[in-house]
C-alpha cells in the first residue's frame, strides 16, 4: 500500500542518509578502532536501508536511492545535518540510535512480518551502535575540560532536531492503528530516560533546546529538509544520474 511504502521510506531513508554522513567519516576518524567501528555502523545502516527500500516495493532500492528528488526523501532532518566534528558525530549517533532502537524494538511486534524481521535484525545491530555512541558520550563528557565543552557544543548543534523525532506523521498514525507501524511519540519517555542515564554517567547536564520548526509545520517526514540535503543528494546521486542507463 502507499502507506506501507511511505513508512518503509521513512525508516529506510533515516538509515540511508545517516549512513551517508557516516561514510563521510571514512579516513577521518581519530583512531583506527573508530575508523572500523564507524564504517561498521554505516554498513549496518546501509543494510537496513536496503531491506526497507526493498520492502517499500514500488521501485527498486537503487531507483529509490538514486532517482528520487529531495522532496521525496522522508528522513528526519537530524540524519542529514552536515558531518560536523567528532563530538557532533557522537551526539547525533547517540541521539539517533537511542531513538531508533526504541522504534525498532516496538516494530518487532509489527503485523507486517517482513518489517518485524527487519526490526529484529536491526535491534541487534543498533544495540551495538548505541553502546558505541554512549561510551563516547561518557568519555568525551567526562574526559578533559576541552572535550566536555566540545561534547556540550555537539549536543547543542544536534538537540534542536530531536523534537521532530517524536512527532507522528499521518502515515505513521494510520499504520499504528493497523498494527503495522510504531508511534514515535511512544518512544519519547524511554529516549529521555536513556539520555538522562548516559548524561549522568558522562557528568554533563541533559541537553535542552527548543525544537527547530519545519516550514509551515512540515519537516523531514513530509519531504521538507534542510539546505544541507541538496548537497548530500548531489553527491550521492552524481554517478548514478550521470549514467541513467547503466547497470552496476
Amino acid at each position: 500500500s502507499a502507506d506501507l511504502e511511505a513508512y518503509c521510506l521513512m525508516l529506510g531513508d533515516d538509515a540511508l542518509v545517516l549512513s551517508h554522513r557516516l561514510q563521510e567519516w571514512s579516513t577521518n576518524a581519530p583512531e583506527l578502532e573508530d575508523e572500523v567501528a564507524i564504517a561498521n555502523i554505516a554498513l549496518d545502516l546501509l543494510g537496513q536501508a536496503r531491506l526497507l527500500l526493498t520492502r517499500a516495493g514500488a521501485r527498486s532500492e537503487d531507483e529509490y536511492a538514486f532517482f528520487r528528488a529531495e522532496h521525496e526523501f522522508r528522513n528526519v532532518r537530524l540524519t542529514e545535518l552536515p558531518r560536523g566534528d567528532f563530538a557532533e558525530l557522537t551526539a547525533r549517533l547517540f541521539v539517533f540510535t537511542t531513538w531508533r532502537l526504541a522504534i525498532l524494538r516496538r516494530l518487532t511486534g509489527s503485523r507486517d512480518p517482513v518489517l518485524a524481521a527487519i526490526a529484529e535484525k536491526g535491534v541487534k545491530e543498533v544495540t551495538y551502535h548505541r553502546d558505541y555512541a554512549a561510551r563516547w558520550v561518557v568519555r568525551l563528557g567526562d574526559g578533559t575540560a576541552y572535550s566536555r565543552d566540545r561534547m556540550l557544543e555537539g549536543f547543542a548543534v544536534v538537540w534542536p532536531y530531536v523534537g521532530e523525532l517524536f512527532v507522528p506523521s499521518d502515515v505513521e498514525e494510520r499504520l499504528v492503528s493497523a498494527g503495522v507501524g510504531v508511534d514515535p511519540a511512544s518512544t519519547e519517555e524511554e529516549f529521555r530516560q536513556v539520555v538522562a542515564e548516559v548524561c549522568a554517567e558522562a557528568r554533563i547536564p541533559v541537553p535542552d533546546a527548543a525544537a527547530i520548526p519545519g516550514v509551515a509545520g512540515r519537516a523531514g517526514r513530509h519531504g521538507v529538509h534542510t539546505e544541507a540535503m541538496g548537497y548530500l543528494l548531489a553527491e550521492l546521486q552524481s554517478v548514478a544520474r550521470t549514467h541513467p542507463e547503466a547497470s552496476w
Partner: protein
Amino acid sequence: MTATVSDPDLEGQFESTIARDQRIEPRDWVPADYRKTMIRMIAQHAHSEIIGMQPEGNWITRAPSLRRKAILLAKVQDEAGHGLYLYSAAETLGADRTELTENLIEGKQKYSSIFNYPTLTFADVGVIGWLVDGAAICNQVPLCRSSYGPYARAMIRICKEESFHQRQGYELLLTMMKGTPAQRKMVQEATDRWWWPSLMMFGPPDADSSHTAQSMAWKIKRHTNDELRQRFVDMSVPQAEALGVTLPDPELKWNAERGHHDFGEIDWSEFKAVVSGNGPCNAQRTAHRKKAHEQGAWVREAAAAYAAKRAGGDDDAR
C-alpha cells in the same frame, strides 16, 4: 628479547630456525638488523593499508548502486582492519603505533607508491580491485611464509580478504563491460591509467633493489621483484582478454620460448619521482592523514584522561 649484544648461541639458534623454515616468534632472540628490517617492512605495509583507504574511500559516497556502496565500504573497512593487525604485529617487535603513525605523517616511513595516483572515475574502484589488489596478492602470498610468525599469520588473513576484494573488483568490471559504451570506455581508460603503476608495485628491477638479497636470506622475502612482476603480467593478460580491455603496452606479447609474456620498458623515472615524494597525490595523501590525525588529537586525549580517571577510582568523587 633480552640480549642486545650479539651472542653466538642465540645467533646460531636464529639462523637454524630460519634454515629449518620455522617461524620466529616475538619471544625469540633476533639480530638487531632483522628486527629493524621487519619493523620497517610491516610498518610500510600497515601504512599502505591506511593510505590505501583514501583513493578508494573517495568513491564510497558516490557509488552508483547500494550494493556496490556496501561492497566498497566493507572493503575500505577491511583495509583499516588490516592496518590494525599489522600495527599490532609491528608492536610485537617493540615498535610503538603512535610513533609509527608519526613516521607516516612526517614522511619518515613510506607506503606503497600506487596510492599516490588519483581515482578519477568509479571504474577505478574496479581496476584497483583487479590490478592493484592482484599485484598486492602476488607480492603478499609468499609473505604468508615469512619467517616472522605474527606477520606471516596476519598475511594469511589479509591475503584471504584481498582475494575476495580482487574478485569483487573484477566482477564490477565485468558488469561495467556489459553496460553502456560510456561504462566500457571508463573501464578501458582506468586500465590505461593503472596498468603501469601496478607493474611498478613490485619495486625496482632486481639489479637495483637494495634490500632483496638480505631479505631473501632471512626468508622475509621469497621471490625477487622481477619474478613477481612477471607472474603478475602472465596472470593479468588472460584476465584482460576475458574482460575485453586492452593493456596499454604495444610490446606486450607471449614469448613461447620463455614461457612468459614479454612486456615494454617501465618508466623508472616516474617510479623514482613517485617514490621520492613527487607523484600526483603524495602531498594530498599525507596531508589528509595528518589532518585527520591532528583533528583526532583532542578525542584521543579525552579517552586517555577518562581512562586515567576511572583507573584512579575517581568514581568516588562523584
